């Protein structure tokens, strides 16, 4: 940030390591995530992608004995600082999960609840409409807002979950394999939506699907167990998606993206 030409960063990690008890699941991650860009995290199963993602909004707090070292900085504040409220962190860094998980309430309530507990004072109808429009779901549900969210299809449910997240106006949205439980068509829809959302939000997505990462993201972080025998994952290459997929620097990245890993 020395010059005003450097891009603005939404989040920055400094020597971030994440532990489950004594087990270091993720080690020494240093990343600068640009604002209003989509950053994909890819890597083989168990390399700590979800762990890293969940560290960003302190969802890992719910795992007993987990802790982090290093820093995650957002506008200069360390999210793991002692004076930081994790509830507030989660409010400003929303999360969308692998399996759609709407509340067993009406479509309307699904969105309104989060806003309400976060002290929203404005016009709720408007907020609901805007959130649904923002997640490209409004046209499909505007006449059935009182229907249970469970009556929606999987893909629609996932978009509802996105609507619910943007309703509380976070600045960053985390997505952990948001389309892996969906059929190909719904997957494409979610990908479309991400392109829309990126205009206003910073998005970090974990995905197993390399084509998906290549399609949707601007930057890609390649994670892998840091060395043979070790069980800690780390980011081994982080750069523009184009570069990762056409001409990666790291041999392991190359092997992984070309499907020759393992």
């Amino acid at each position, binding site marked *: 940030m020395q010059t005003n030409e450097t891009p603005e960063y939404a989040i920055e990690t400094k020597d971030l390591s994440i532990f489950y008890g004594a087990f270091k699941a993720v080690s020494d991650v240093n990343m600068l995530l640009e604002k209003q860009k989509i950053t994909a995290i890819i890597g083989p199963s168990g390399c700590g992608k979800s762990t890293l993602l969940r560290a960003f909004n302190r969802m890992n707090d719910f795992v007993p004995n987990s802790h982090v070292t290093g820093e995650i900085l*957002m*506008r200069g*504040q360390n*999210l793991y600082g002692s*004076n*930081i*409220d994790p*509830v*507030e*962190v989660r409010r*400003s860094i929303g999360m969308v999960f692998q399996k759609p998980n709407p509340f067993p309430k009406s479509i309307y309530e699904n969105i309104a609840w989060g806003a309400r507990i*976060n*002290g*929203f*004072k*404005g016009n709720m109808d*408007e*907020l609901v*409409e*805007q*959130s649904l*429009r*923002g997640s490209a779901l409004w046209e499909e549900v505007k006449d059935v807002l009182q229907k249970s969210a469970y009556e929606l299809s999987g893909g629609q449910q996932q978009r509802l979950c996105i609507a619910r997240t*943007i*309703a509380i*106006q976070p*600045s960053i949205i985390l997505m952990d394999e948001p389309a892996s439980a969906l059929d190909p068509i719904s997957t494409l829809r979610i990908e479309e939506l991400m392109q829309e959302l990126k*205009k*206003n*939000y910073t998005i970090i997505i974990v995905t197993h699907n390399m084509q998906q990462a290549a399609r949707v993201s601007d930057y890609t972080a390649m994670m892998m167990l840091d060395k043979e025998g070790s069980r800690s994952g780390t980011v081994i290459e982080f750069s523009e998606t184009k570069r990762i997929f056409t001409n990666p620097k790291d041999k392991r990245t190359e092997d992984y993206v070309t499907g020759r890993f393992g």
Partner: protein
Amino acid sequence: MKNTIMENKNFRPLDLKKKMRPGESVIQSLLFISGVLSIFITVAIVYELGKEALLFFNNPDVTLTKFFATTQWQPGIGLFGIWPLVTATLTTSAIAIFVSLPLGLAAALFLSEYATPKARSTLKPILEVLAGIPTVVYGYFALLFMTPLLQSIFGESVQVYNMASAGIVMGIMILPLIASMSEDALSAVPRSLREGAYAMGATKFETSIQVVLPASLSGVGAALIIGISRAIGETMIVAIASGSGPNFTFNPFKAAETMTGHIARISGGDLSYNSIDYTSLFAVALMLFLVTLVLNLISQVVVERFREKYE
């Protein structure tokens, strides 16, 4: 309409600072206290039973040798051999398990593997009704149905109060428990496993016995242990049907008093709190508690193992 969502103007300024949430902590403390109460109950049980039992064992007349090495139990007149109570408990429980285990397991197999979903959804609740009938009713059944039945089959050798009828009825009482728990264990075996077996050309029977049953064995084992524990702790059936008065015998057609039956009979009357009879009851109860505790612990470990397998 201007979409302010998409413009992302936060309705509350971003402030990650810690907030005070006193309500949360108060509630958490209350809930914690509720949780810890159960510990107090156990402590109370151990303490109370232990305290009185200690009084019993501290009685100069009572020695451990007498307690474990003699076969007559009449604390009131200085006979402290626990064995008659134990053998009666063992006999009735053994009969109960002997009845309920094969029947329960077979019924469970039928329900989970053969019955149509519709049949299962009516039969299983019926079994559960059977499990929900108060044991005192089973006592009535044992005394007024099973005993006459046994007498009509085996003749005079069957006493009016006898362990066989109590044991069999106890078996009937435990049967639904074992069937139901085993059925749960069997149905918890994923469908995919059955399909895997069928797809290899296995018949239904081969699938049930050679794939499903082994896969659920620990669940069935847990059911068995729980069944034993229930049989040992069961009071009313034996109190009604098995006879009063300790009797050192393994003959199922004879009357004999189990540990539970003994406690129920003695404490039913107006018992003076500091008599040897009173404290002896606690000694018996403590034994009962310890035995069932061990069995429950074992079954928990078994169940835990079983759970892990499919999760």
